[in-house]
Each structure stands twice: as structure tokens, then as C-alpha cells.
């Protein structure tokens, strides 16, 4: 279960990056791209073994987010659209789509002759049913919130009506986010979240699932009647579960495994990079914006003083963390969004390392040398040593230099950490959080006043509340103009960083390591959470 939770949160909703760009160019009828003919040298057949540290609860991404379910889910279920490596939507189950003039109605035209794994045809009714299920059950309820109705106008046409223009809609129809479920199988009156069909679901994707042993492996077999002719190239995909990064790495080196995605151990990356028959890439993670940060409980008597939080921020050197602790493989982070976000701004207080400033601020607040003694504890997510524990230890050593005594409080496992932090029983904590591309989904939850909800993980556990920031975030959420929207976020981020409820440490790196027999490794924005119908093995 090692990196399970970190990864579990790694958002399926993923980067809605570029969605703004998408809206800027209202799409008239999108070009129907004929599926690219297989290049002559493609070899079909073979089994791809994918290493996973994730343990899916079940295989239905309509009611479950997270990489664990998304990776097999994207193979088992087709979605209306898919995305390449550049945030451009591509036809998948829908061969074309068009927006109305006012951007509030989206019409999908489905492909003819596509069938589910049980041979039944895929119709507009199935798409409507799936969208209703996702809207009602998926944990990311902001994803389809503006969708007011979905209609099957004819067997091949789906009409989606929205209450307001919703730029994220195309992305929400892709990858694991909008699996097209067979209505005739799932719609049997049982609660879909607890449906037994979720264990071995009938899908519509390039592979059908034949075996799912929880905690061990998932077997996927080529679906002969897949609607894209000639695909998939592989005969089988086996997703094999490993307990930790090291055993997965060893299995890759031993040839037991050919593809190891979501790799975040820098030492392992460095070791695998040196292997001559191995490639390590950081592509395929554009849909994920993960960062590590140090959060303060602003209700703590000392930490409620903004000068103390600022002092701590100045006392820490994030460059030391990224270069020395992470071997140069992670990037520094400065503000609520990652640097690849369209809303990234440089105009924030970065708290560049300055011990003297830190000492001065502490003295002003009455702490530090000569002042009141200050002792704080620091928590950290127990699963990721490099990105979490090592940084927490560094914080302890570093704050000793300005006279703050820090005790590192280890949690034996994720539930222990989650309970402490979600109930605001902490002073400072390291955490790993996701951007999800659009601030509406991944950023606001950390800062808005009405999300201070004890007992709920990844809510506003810092107890940071500023009505002005609330207002800015709310108006940016519905602002159609990208430039204005950017400006509003810039203002909000400037206000937030000024009072430092969080010290942003680094953007978390992800890699995929694969053996050289693997061709066309998954590098779309969704990476391995996208369909692997074009992956093939060189014999």
C-alpha cells in the first residue's frame, strides 16, 4: 500500500489545462480524423506487463477516481473523446462533436457499429446513461455541475445542454472520466457504487477484463470487435501489483515487467536511466499537476501570527530540497498552481531563502533567540520518503537554526495521518496535493472559507479564510475571458502567498520507465490513464 494514497488522489480529473485555450477557439464541427493507419513496421500480438503500486477497489471509473481504477478503466471502457499529447481533443467513440453558437449545447455524433464486450451495440442511450451515472456518483462533482441535461436524440446522437459555457466539458468526456457503460448491464436497480458488475465490468474499450485478483493482478485481453479497425495491437495487458517501488524496479530489470508508470522515486529513476535497454520519460503526466507543500495550522497560537509563518518560510531553502534531496529531478513550487498551468504567475512572494529575515521576523513576533521559546510539531504523508519524510526532517534541522524546536511526528500509515490532519490536530504538515489543471477543481478547495470542514481530507485544513480571496476565486470560476481570469487568479494568489498559510516546496515529478521492446508508450496528457490501443511490442 506504499504510495497508494498519494497516487490515489492523483487525480483522475487531471489537468484541465488548456481547457481555457480550447474555449478560446470555439469548435465548430471538429474534423473527423480517420484513425491513423498502422505504420508498416507495427508488430501485433504479445503481452505487456505493467507494474503498478496501486490497488484498485474495483474497475469502474464512473464512480471512482484515482489512478488505480483509471489505468485499467481506460483500457476496459471507451470514452466519447480522447486526447493526444497536446491537449487537443480527438474523436474516439464519438466521431464528431459540435457546440452551439452560445456554447451551451454540445452535440456528439457516435460511431456506427461499435459494440460492447458482450456484443450489444453502443447507442446514444448508453452515453446518456453513463453521463447521468457520472454526474450523480463521481467524486468530482464539479466536473459535470453545469450540465443540466443529456438527451439521446437518435441512436447515434447525444445532445448535452449546459446552464453556462463549460470549457472543461470536452476533457471531462475523455479518458477514464467518462466511461461509456452498457446500460443493459449496469441499470439493474442496484446502487452502482456497490454493484458487483464493477469487479469485472463489461466495457466498450480496446481490452476486456478477464481476471481481477484484488491486490495481485488484472488481466486484460484484446477485444476482437473493438471499433477502431486493426487495434489494439497487443494481445494482452497484465497490470501486476507490487508492494513498493524497489520490487517493481527489480521486476522491470529482470524483464518480468515492461512498463512501470507513475514512478516517483528519484533514486530509482537515476538507476533505471543508466540501463542501456531501458527508457525513462516524464511525458504522459501533463494531466496531473502534483505538488508538495508545507501547510500551517493557522489556528495554532504561534502560527496564527503571520510573521511566524513568514519567518518559517524564509528559513527554508526549497532549492536545497529539489537539488540535494531530490537529485535535481523535482522543480521548485512557489504558488497554488504548478508552473505548467495557464494561470501560473510570477507575481507572488516567493520567500526566497533568507535566514536573517527569518530571525528578524521571529524576533518581531516575540520568538526566537531571546524571545519566548517556540516548539512545533511537523507531520508528513507517511508513504513517500523522499518527497515527504526527508523534507520534514530538513524542516526540523533548518528551523533549529532560527531557534524553533521542531519535532517530527511520524504517522504509521495514511489513515493515521489523515485523521490527524483532517481534524486539524497538527501544527505543520507536509502534504502532496493536486492541481487538477483548473483552479476551480484543484485549488479553490484549499483556500475558500466554507471548505473548512473538520473530518474531511483535503479540505481547507489550514483554516485559512479571507473573504476577498473567496470573492476573487468565485468570480474567476465563471469568467469566460482568459486574460481577465488570469488576472483574477494572480490577485488571489498574491493575497494568499502574502500571508503564507502554506509554504510551497516543489512540483512532484512523475516518470514512466519502460523496456526498449515497448513501442508507442502512453504519452498523451493522460499517459497510462488513456487507452493503450496503439502500444506494441518489438519482437
Amino acid at each position: 500500500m506504499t504510495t497508494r494514497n498519494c497516487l490515489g488522489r492523483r487525480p483522475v480529473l487531471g489537468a484541465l489545462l488548456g481547457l481555457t485555450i480550447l474555449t478560446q477557439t470555439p469548435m465548430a464541427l471538429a474534423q473527423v480524423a480517420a484513425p491513423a493507419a498502422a505504420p508498416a513496421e507495427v508488430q501485433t500480438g504479445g503481452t505487456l506487463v505493467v507494474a503498478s503500486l496501486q490497488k484498485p477497489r474495483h474497475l469502474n471509473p464512473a464512480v471512482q477516481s484515482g489512478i488505480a481504477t483509471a489505468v485499467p478503466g481506460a483500457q476496459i471502457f471507451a470514452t466519447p473523446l480522447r486526447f493526444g499529447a497536446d491537449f487537443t481533443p480527438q474523436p474516439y467513440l464519438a466521431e464528431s462533436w459540435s457546440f452551439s453558437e452560445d456554447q451551451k449545447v454540445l452535440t456528439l455524433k457516435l460511431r456506427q457499429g461499435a459494440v460492447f464486450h458482450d456484443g450489444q451495440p453502443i447507442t446514444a442511450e448508453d452515453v446518456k446513461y453513463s453521463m447521468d451515472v457520472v454526474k450523480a456518483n463521481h467524486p468530482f462533482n464539479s466536473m459535470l455541475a453545469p450540465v443540466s441535461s443529456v438527451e439521446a436524440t437518435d441512436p447515434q446522437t447525444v445532445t448535452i445542454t449546459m446552464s453556462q459555457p463549460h470549457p472543461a466539458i470536452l476533457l471531462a468526456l475523455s479518458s477514464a472520466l467518462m466511461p461509456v457503460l452498457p446500460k443493459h448491464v449496469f441499470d439493474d436497480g442496484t446502487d452502482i457504487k456497490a454493484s458487483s458488475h464493477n469487479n469485472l465490468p463489461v466495457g466498450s474499450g480496446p481490452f476486456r477484463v478477464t481476471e481481477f485478483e484484488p491486490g495481485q493482478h488484472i488481466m486484460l485481453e484484446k477485444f476482437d470487435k473493438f471499433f477502431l479497425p486493426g487495434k489494439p495491437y497487443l494481445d494482452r495487458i497484465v497490470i501486476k501489483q507490487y508492494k513498493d517501488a524497489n520490487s517493481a524496479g527489480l521486476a522491470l530489470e529482470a524483464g518480468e515487467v515492461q512498463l512501470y508508470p507513475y514512478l516517483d522515486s528519484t533514486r530509482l529513476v537515476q538507476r533505471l536511466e543508466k540501463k542501456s535497454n531501458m527508457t525513462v520519460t516524464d511525458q504522459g503526466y501533463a494531466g496531473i499537476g502534483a505538488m508538495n507543500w508545507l501547510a500551517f495550522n493557522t489556528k495554532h497560537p504561534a502560527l496564527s501570527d503571520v510573521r511566524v509563518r513568514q519567518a518559517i518560510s524564509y528559513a527554508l531553502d526549497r532549492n536545497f530540497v529539489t537539488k540535494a534531496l531530490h537529485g535535481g529531478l523535482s522543480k521548485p513550487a512557489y504558488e497554488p498552481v504548478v508552473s505548467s498551468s495557464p494561470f501560473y504567475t510570477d507575481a507572488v512572494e516567493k520567500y526566497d531563502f533568507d535566514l536573517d529575515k527569518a530571525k528578524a521576523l521571529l524576533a518581531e513576533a516575540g520568538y526566537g533567540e531571546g524571545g519566548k521559546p517556540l516548539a512545533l510539531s511537523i507531520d508528513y504523508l507517511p508513504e513517500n520518503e523522499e518527497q515527504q519524510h526527508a523534507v520534514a526532517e530538513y524542516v526540523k534541522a533548518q528551523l533549529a537554526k532560527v531557534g524553533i524546536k521542531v519535532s517530527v511526528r511520524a504517522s504509521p500509515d495514511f489513515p493515521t495521518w489523515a485523521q490527524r490532519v483532517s481534524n486539524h490536530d497538527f501544527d505543520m504538515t507536509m502534504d502532496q496535493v493536486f492541481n487538477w489543471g483548473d483552479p476551480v477543481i484543484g485549488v479553490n478547495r484549499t483556500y475558500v472559507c466554507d471548505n473548512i470542514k473538520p473530518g474531511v481530507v483535503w479540505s481547507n485544513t489550514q483554516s485559512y479564510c479571507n473573504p476577498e480571496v473567496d470573492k476573487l476565486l468565485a468570480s474567476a470560476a465563471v469568467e469566460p475571458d482568459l486574460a481577465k481570469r488570469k488576472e483574477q487568479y494572480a490577485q488571489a494568489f498574491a493575497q494568499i502567498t502574502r500571508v503564507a498559510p502554506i509554504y510551497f516546496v516543489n512540483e512532484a515529478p512523475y516518470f514512466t520507465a519502460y523496456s526498449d521492446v515497448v513501442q508507442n508508450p502512453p504519452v498523451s496528457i493522460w499517459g497510462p490513464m488513456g487507452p493503450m490501443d496503439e502500444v506494441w511490442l518489438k519482437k
Partner: protein
Amino acid sequence: MRGIVKRLIWAAGLILAVLVLNFLLIQLAPGDPAEVIAGEMGGASADVMAGIRAQYGLDKPLPVQLGLYLGKALQGDLGVSYYYNRAVAGLILSRVGPTLLLVGSALAFALIVGTRLGLLASRNPRGPASALVTVLSLIGYAAPVFWTGLMLVILFAARIPLFPVSGMRDVTGATDLVSRTLDVAHHLVLPALTLGIVYLAQYSRLTRAAMLEVLGSDYIRTARAKGVRERRVFTHHAFRNALLPVVTVAGMQFGTILSGAVLVETVFSWPGLGTLAFDSILARDYPTILGILFFSTLIVICANLLTDAVARRLDPRLQQRG
């Protein structure tokens, strides 16, 4: 006959006590299953969390939860896993085989090789063989089992690729019975060896000590005086008696071996009860943890009964004492 009935009543009471105790103990662990599930989903609203709690009855008062659980458990229904959304009994049953296979092979290996080594060492207690066995067993006993496992993996799976790194079978391989059996055996070698080494060390030391004690007793001297061959003295007269403590320890270990299996299964991703227990604890999957604990209790009780029976066979005096 009365003895058996008595034992069964005792066992039933023990099982009930274990069920209650386990249920209460598990509540002491910090953390909340709803939070784990919400964490897996990437965060959730307060409504969703409340929904999860209601779905699994976690919102009910503790005594009510305990009552519901006991009522079901006593009817043989171990509930549904929060985490995997499957019947706990089925989950456990699917994992029992691999664990028994692993533990059984490790114990068999340890018993056979360990007692041999102990015998060898006892022939000449001050000789070099004895010293070697003593030192090796000390190392084997002292080395942490996960370390031994990792070293074996690095040596025999990564450096010299003789054995698979992990798992119980090659899921991509052939499906006929013979090659599947061979495949499982191939995967079994390293984990069984890892787990076996610890027990082997204990058994060899135990056998050596017991042999030395028995060999000094009067009836051995008598046997030798009667002109019985040394070989026969060793195997028939001495070894049979020296085996008694070994069997007792082995029997007790069979009950506690789950704890060792957790580590070995984790290192080798062996799909047994140990990994299931480990995963369920991390997920605060109460029904599964309770089910496994319940099942382990049954195993311990059975192992004890079995050990008694074997010990009685080895030493008829035990039978008379009842």
C-alpha cells in the same frame, strides 16, 4: 470423548472472546475507513463521507456495530469488505491456499533440513561441523526475515535471474496443469527459503541441544552397552525423543507463522493472507481484518490440537496423562 467435547466448548468460548476482543481492539487504531476510501477517490465532500459511513454502518454506535457483527459472524457471515466490495469469506478463502502452501513448504523444509543439521552437529558437539551449524543458525535466526528475502531477490532474481522476483505465478504463461504447477513451484522457492531459514535455524539448534541431552541419558548408555549400533542409537533411541520439543515448537509456530508470513509475502508479493491482512489494516478495512483474525484463531486452535496429537504419538506417556 469427554476430552474432545471439553476442548470444543473451550475452543468455542475462545473464538467468541477473540471476536469481541478483536472488534474492540481494532476500534483503537486511529483513522477512519471512510477517510481512506475518500482518500482513494481523491478527496470527497462531507456528504459523500457521510454516505460512505452510512453504507457500512459506521455511523451507528459502537455497541450496535458490535452486536450486528457478532450476530452475523456467529452465522458464518463475515461481512463485506469495505475496500474491495466483496464478501470477506471469499477473499480469505482465495488467500488461504497460497499461505498454507508457503508456510507448509517453509516448515517442511525447515524441519527436514534443520533436524538433519542438528543431528549432524550433535554427533561431535565440539567438532567443526557443530560450530559451523551453530554459527549459521545464529545468523539465520538473527537476520531480519525481510532482509533475507530482499538479499535472496537481489542475488537470485536480479543478479542471477534464476527465480522470479515476485508473485505466485506467471500470469502470462501456459495454462495446463503441469506447467502451472511447475510455475508455482518455481515462484515458491525463494519465499519458502526465506521463511524457512528462520525456522531452520531454530530447529537445528533445538535438535542439537535436545540430542545432546538425550545422548547423555541412561537408556542410551544401556542401548550402547547392549551393543546396539551407533546409527540405530542415534535415529531410533535418541532422535525420536529429541524430536518432541521440536514438534512442540513447530506446532506453536504454525499458529504464529502468519506474522512471519506477512513480511515474506510482502517482500515477494505472495498473494496470501499475510498481504491481505497488511493491506486491510492500511485500508482500515475492518470486516476483512476481523475475518482474518478470526480465521487465524481457528488455525491456531487447530494447530494446537494437531500438535497435541503428534506429540502423543511420539511419546505414549503423554497419552496416559490425558
